[in-house]
């Protein structure tokens, strides 16, 4: 979350993906960095023990949301 917000502050559009086990930490980070309500995408937890195929499937499921967030014209942060 911090990396994504810093990139955005530097002018590069970013999309943050969190597994749903880390939503509270992510929201706290966004709040602390002064961007409450910062939009991000969640994917099911866990991912560390996925096979390569399962991971690719998880990524494919998230792709539409990633593209939507990339296209979102929120005027930057």
């Amino acid at each position, binding site marked *: 979350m*911090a990396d994504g917000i810093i990139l955005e502050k530097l002018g590069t559009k970013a999309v943050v993906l969190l597994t749903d086990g880390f939503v*509270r*930490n992510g929201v*706290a*980070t966004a709040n*602390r*960095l002064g961007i409450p309500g910062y939009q991000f995408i969640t994917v099911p937890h866990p991912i560390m023990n996925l096979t390569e195929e399962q991971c690719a499937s998880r990524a494919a499921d998230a792709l539409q949301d990633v593209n939507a967030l990339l296209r979102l014209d929120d005027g930057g942060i």
Partner: protein
Amino acid sequence: MVQTPELTAEQVAYAQQAIEYCYDQGWTDGLPVVPATPDRVEQFVEYVGRDGSEPLQAYLPCALYDRVCTVETAAINAVMAGCLPEYFPVVLAALETINLPSAPGGESREQYPQSTSGQSPLVIVNGPIRKRLDFNSGGNVFGPGYRANATVGRAIRLIIMNALGIRPETFDGSTQGTPSKYTFCIAENEEESPWQPLSVDQGFGRNESLVTALYTRSVFHVQNRESNKAEEVMLTFADAMSSPGTRSGGYIVVMGPQHAFLLAQQGWSKAAVRQFIWEHWGRQYFDLERMGLARKSDRANADGFVHFGASAESLQIVVAGANSSGMSAVVTSVPPPFHSKSLAPFD
């Protein structure tokens, strides 16, 4: 011994209100804290002779979040933890040691208080300051009953929570944490050790007060009351350190005096003990593979033994506890180097 004045019921009620106020502010670790007054905080700052506004060091994730721990902020939390002013140099030395990188420009250790693994800081005290401030190095060394041990360790936790803002379920991402996150401070039982103390191993003087601080995960007790053979006792240590599910690149072996004397009386130096334990600390590759825990880097030893530590330097030995039984403990830690800071100015 300072005599504290007797208080009236009304004064005690005020104190209770102040304690509840601290709860309301979210300043506690769940246990009551000592309300900090400006005068008391000033005593702590004056004792170390430093500027209260001095930032202790850059904690990268916290600097990112605009959080800086100054000497004064640390003092406030040390007061709340129940420390005496004389303990404050130990607290500061631990804070200024624990996040030092593994090497110049090396891996940062600042992420550990936020890790899902749930590490807790361990503070180890050596030298004359142990006795002067009544740090426990003997029986029940991991347990309760000593103000110095209990409050120094607790001060580190309160600073992490209050000064750095790393609190459960926000920036502290511990999956489970560990009881030692409340407090974790021990002293070495130098008087009942056959070997040179940790302070000498760390490159400092034998009679120099020293603080060593590092992140740790778990304390496992190692029991071998049955054997009187050094190799068998040391294998018991190595075996306790070799559980694949608790694999760690560093260990602090907190050896009870009985074990230490048994090894020393059979001619084992501390360095030789470290080497022997390291050689047997790890698992056969097939055993790791059987549990799905073999790492890519382990494949070089696919036909044999995988060492869990990089070298004998990956474990450090501290003698602590009572000389009463064949009990010791091993503590999973960050990989070396283990950093220390001298307290010689306060000796």
